[in-house]
């Protein structure tokens, strides 16, 4: 089953600051199952990039293996993509980012790709604070191999196979916060009002940003007994609040729902505005974020929204390594090769 996008587009489609329409951010037709949560996330990525006026060719799309990892083919068709090997996207993304620090890096992975086979690489790309947006399309199962439980499946949850999962679930958001990620959020593929601003905040974050998106697998894991089904998520979802991403040089509007507002300024002057019901939550604090996650887990709720956005000046990998400001892949030969007279000087140390 594949989803075909309409060919006809209204001539007066809205344009962004670069003069592009949303269509310029689309990719190939999806080959995922009809109703797959991943397609909704794909659309949210398209919308976020469109709204942020990111050049449609200026993104590098990275993925591993699995249903989720196919999606980079379905958005930003003018950008290069790299569908690597299972669980190894973080290292490929690290190398690509080292070669050219001027592009926007979006990694798409799944729960199997990240929380099982790719757990090591995931943990270390967080530690390195690579400047990228890492999106997990989290459905709690291995779709492409027909529905085995994954490491994010909740204990006791059962998929279409009918056996309750006996193992503890890995919470990727809690893990990322512990490992020092500067931006950590969880969305739901069924709630694009929440997801798009979460993605926009992630894309503007300087450093590693994780957006874990619960994305029901309609074919294998959308049963009444699954905690990753549309119904269960809708019934148990609690949000940290309503978030909005305000780009630089835009007026901050008042909170549109009653509550407490917390603003976090991004490195480029953009502002994340969180309107929340609970003023004890402080998204700039790791501890507060972990407490909130644990609190809701105990209650059997699924907490979504922005958990953590660091207000500290983050050191991303290039800053840590003190690499030159110019992208490494653009350096000319004379900047790289010291020449023969220097070689002779070097060799004097070996005489």
């Amino acid at each position, binding site marked *: 089953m594949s989803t075909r996008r309409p060919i006809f587009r209204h001539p007066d489609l809205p344009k962004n600051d670069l003069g592009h329409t949303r269509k310029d951010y689309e990719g190939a037709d999806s080959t995922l199952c009809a109703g797959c949560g991943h397609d909704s996330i794909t659309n949210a990525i398209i919308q976020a990039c469109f709204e942020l006026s990111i*050049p*449609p*060719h*200026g993104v*590098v799309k990275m993925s591993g293996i699995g249903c989720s990892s196919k999606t*980079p*083919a379905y958005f930003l*068709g*003018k*950008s*290069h*993509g*790299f*569908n*690597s*090997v299972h669980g*190894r996207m*973080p*290292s*490929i*993304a*690290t*190398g*690509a*980012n*080292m*070669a*050219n620090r*001027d*592009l926007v890096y979006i990694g798409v992975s799944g729960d199997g790709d990240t929380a099982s086979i790719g757990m*090591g*690489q995931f*943990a*270390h790309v967080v530690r*390195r604070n690579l400047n990228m947006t890492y999106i997990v399309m989290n459905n709690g199962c291995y779709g492409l191999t027909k529905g085995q439980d994954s490491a994010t499946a909740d204990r006791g949850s059962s998929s279409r196979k009918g056996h309750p999962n006996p193992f503890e679930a890995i919470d990727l958001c809690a893990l990322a916060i512990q490992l020092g990620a500067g931006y950590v959020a969880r969305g739901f593929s069924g709630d694009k009002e929440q997801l798009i601003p979460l993605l926009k905040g992630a894309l503007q974050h300087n450093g590693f940003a994780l957006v874990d998106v619960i994305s029901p697998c309609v074919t294998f894991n959308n049963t009444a007994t699954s905690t990753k089904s549309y119904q269960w998520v809708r019934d148990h979802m609690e949000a940290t609040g309503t978030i909005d991403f305000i780009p630089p040089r835009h007026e901050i509007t008042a909170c549109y729902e009653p509550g407490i507002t917390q603003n976090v300024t991004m490195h480029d002057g953009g502002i994340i505005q969180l309107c929340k019901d609970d003023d004890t939550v402080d998204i700039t604090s790791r501890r507060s974020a972990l407490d909130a996650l644990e609190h809701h887990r105990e209650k059997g709720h699924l907490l979504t929204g922005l958990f953590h956005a660091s207000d500290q000046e983050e050191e991303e*990998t*290039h800053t840590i*390594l*003190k*690499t*030159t*400001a*110019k992208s*490494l*892949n653009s*350096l000319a*030969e004379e*900047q*790289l*090769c*010291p*020449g*023969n007279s*220097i*070689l*002779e000087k*070097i*060799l004097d140390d*070996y*005489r």
Partner: protein
Amino acid sequence: MIKIKSVNDFVIRFANVNGSGSASANNLFAKAVFRLGVPVSPKNIFPSNIQGLPTWYEVRVNDQGHLGRRGGYDFIVAINNRTLKKDYDALESGGYFLYDSTRALDDNFDRNDIILVPIPLTEICNREIESPKLRQLLKNIVYVGAVAYLLDMDLSVLKDSITRQFSKKPKLAEPNINALDLGFDYAAQHFKGLCELSIEPCDRLTNHIMIDGNTATGLGALYGGATVAGWYPITPSTSVVDAFDKFTRRYRLDEEGKCRAAIIQAEDELAALGIAIGAGWNGARAFTATSGPGLSLMSEFLGLAYFAEIPVVLVDVQRTGPSTGMPTRSQQSDILAAAYASHGDTRHVLLFPGNPNECFEMTAQSFDLAERLQTPVIIMSDLDLGMNDHVCTPMQWDDGRTFDRGKVLDHDQLEAMTEKFGRYLDKDGDGICYRTYPAAHPTKGSYFTRGSSHDEYAAYTEDEQAYKRCMLRLTRKWETAKSLVPKPHTEINDDTTAWGAVFFGTTTQSAQEAFERLADRGIVINTLRIRSFPFQDEVADFINRHQTTFVIEQNRDGQMRSLIINECGINPDRLVPITNIDSMPVTAGHIIQAMEQTIDSSKAPATKPDRGEER
């Protein structure tokens, strides 16, 4: 008893405890021999351990320039009590045994065919050196001073070396020089005329350098324009990246002191190669360095880079396998694992450096090859080459040389294109397609890289014909590679001899010594040194012109022989394996013995009668 007597031709072995500072003292000695113009080859035989286990440092001095391992020891400096007896027993008859006589030798040290050189090293150090911390370190320098006297060496060369070594901390030079004098003076007072081994300055080495292969490899990566390195620590490859790091800090800084290279210590070897592949894909010259266990882990990614056609350089400094094997011993045993790394039909370009000069040259060249061929290039070094110092001719860089960045379409070329860009379209018929870097053009040239089956436009395909076209094009590219990789070095010494020999890498020194000695006995052998894979026609032609060809290598199973049989379609009977698996660098003696066995049992005339000169 006949003392071993020789000028500039002997082997001296230092037996120490690792972590005691002996390595730099022993290196000081080897460097001094080198600076006297005498060909020298030190080999560090060290444990996989940081402190407390036995370690040996073997130095072969040979003014004929034979610098492979010889085997046998003419002079032993025995500083390690735990191996004292073993070292004592290992000494050649008529050899010299220098030991710390602060403690007397046990009664079972009862050889009467060797010369004892007792020096109370500990006692001297305790008496003469105030700082207890320095005593241990300087004890090593004291014995070097004594050895210098015994071998008639010019002490000023050693002192000069120390001064150079501590040029930034001259205060440290003084106690070292004093220690050198202590040893020298003691030996002068007690052992005048005792030792008949000596080192005389000679002019065999003119412009030569003494450098380890890993440093030369790191230097090659600097000159080859590498900007990204992903790596994971593993003996014996670690010093490749250390060297690259050191050179980039000096020669790759921009005006603000920021580095024009990114070196990332990864979480494992998988990630290390992944980082290099990601960078290579995005247009940076990138590499990783590892050894056998890392190569095994990297197989998955090598398959991806082969199939998705991404340039990347991998330096494999081979060690003794299988599994963890002997991490600090040398071997040439990753040949097949590297050549065919990864599942499915894969083949990788291999380069086989034989000395540090080639480590430099081939590493620099490997980036050109990887980008031209859009595929992994693996440099097959080994521990002996990588971690030991070798005397070689100095590297040179032609300032007119430019990097070959391969077939890459830039913005203007894409702009001018009228047809649709196809990442895997073989437009030139050489199997190599055009690639683009991300963000090269706003609307043209983007593609989706994948390790899954893809068509000419990089789209996923399960069309069997498209898959087949892709795989067959890769074999076409393999043919193209043959015209680009370094050619073998062939020496035809006799048009009519029945014997050929094929070897590569660190086997070279000992093999050449063996051939010279066999020629002295009237056995003439033509030789071919493999320098790369895929094999050019020269390899099969060489083998086919001889009745029998020896394949000399340092592993158990004759991996290079298997590769030749498989790739060149050679009848296995024509290839006689000569292998060395004692985890020590192969000796000329071992090669000669194995070759003579075959030659003697053969009825074929080995030589033309008028050429041989029997001894």
